[in-house]
């Protein structure tokens, strides 16, 4: 296979993957499957902060020992630039 056609194949893969994602996102919206808790009016929960942020950059750990949760969340605040309020919600969710 020539480099150019390989590049085209890969580009197509990328576009298809993106399109699949957009499509399924749209579908979810159509079916109003978004839980009420995720609608903007209701106050944010720690679980939402976790779901919205912790798999952006890496696979999040399944469990963090409560003794180090504060340290980890401080560290991730510097990376993900989370707000102070998000930090409090996360700590409450991860180490209630």
């Amino acid at each position, binding site marked *: 296979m020539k*480099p150019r056609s*390989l*590049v085209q194949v*890969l*580009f197509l*893969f*990328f576009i298809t*993957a*993106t399109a*699949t*994602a*957009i499509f*399924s*996102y749209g*579908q*979810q919206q159509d079916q109003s499957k978004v839980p009420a808790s*995720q609608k*903007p009016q209701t*106050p*944010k929960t*720690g679980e939402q902060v976790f779901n*919205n942020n912790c*798999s*952006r*950059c*890496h*696979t*999040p*750990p*399944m469990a*963090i*020992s*409560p*003794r*180090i*949760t*504060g*340290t*980890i*969340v*401080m*560290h991730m*605040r*510097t*990376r993900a*630039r*989370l*707000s*102070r*309020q998000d930090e*409090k*919600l996360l*700590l*409450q969710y*991860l*180490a*209630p």
Partner: protein
Amino acid sequence: MPRGFHKQIRWPAATIAIVVSLACSLRAQTPQVPPVPENHAGHVPVISGGFAYIHNVNGGVTTLLPQINPILLVPFGSHVLLESRTDFTGFFQRENQTSGPFKGKVFKTVDFAQIDWLANSHAILSVGKYLLPFGLYNERLVPVWIRNLQDSPITAAIGTRTSGAGDGIMLRGLVLQRSAYSIQYSSYFSARSGVNQLEAARTAGGDSSIYLTRLRLEAGVSYQRFLQQRNINSVATYISWQPRTVPLDLKAEGDFNYNGRGYWTEAAYRLQQLPIPALARNIQLVTRMQQFFPLHGGGNSLPTVDTHRIDFGLNYYIRDDIRFVSSYGRSFSERGNANVWNVGVTYRFLFPLFPARKK
């Protein structure tokens, strides 16, 4: 002090001043939020990091790459954090490249060693040696346990000269946060240093991105001015998207500077939603495509001829912290095409520095 230093420092200093005052004024505007119940989170120092053993074959030459990158995190209260990462990577190749016994050595590098003051949501001040926040790669994807493909993108050399780190100060935080989106920034100034393990170039720059919370899409731009010998501007624009309903991870970045321009796009898909045996759902398929076009002869760790590269990866997650990784890549250039293979294992460790107290 070299002539022109004041001139060079003036605009980064002004940028930082503007950002600080913006951060302070925004702080005053932060809406009132409901109180959060108490928690039991502890602030015990942490040792974490990545361990990997990678077997790499590039154009027929085998390299064994054992590596460990411990991170030390020591908090002082809930506002000050000391963080440091040291990288130990062994490079072992056959004596005559393709024959003979394996020989090599282990390289040690202090990647960063900094103190962070988490003043408020809008201002986190870091002082020391910090990772340059340029594009998606340097700060986020370098750890072996995070990257989906073990080889760095070609353009990772843009905006990260000379050591990938800066010595000086960095200010970062949220510009604003709404329920649908948040905007964040980083800005930094680094002094030139040739001190062993503290090598850095005189640079100034910043990064800003918008994160659309419901879409889980982030788009950003990074800028850096290299303030040594020839002043060089580097720019990156990037997108990172992890859709809510599909276990996909899409990332793309375009980079530009005096020595060249290029881009990479990467898609990673975990098979966890497919109707296949449970064991196979731990598989992640990855593909990356990249192109690089040198300008002014390229160089500074960038190719000197047009280069295209594609990579396919297959990773297997045994747990969230251990995985087998494998990839095949082919690079195309007028200097010749080459196949690159990687197989190995990566592990993320994480434990408190003090053992658990006896009850």
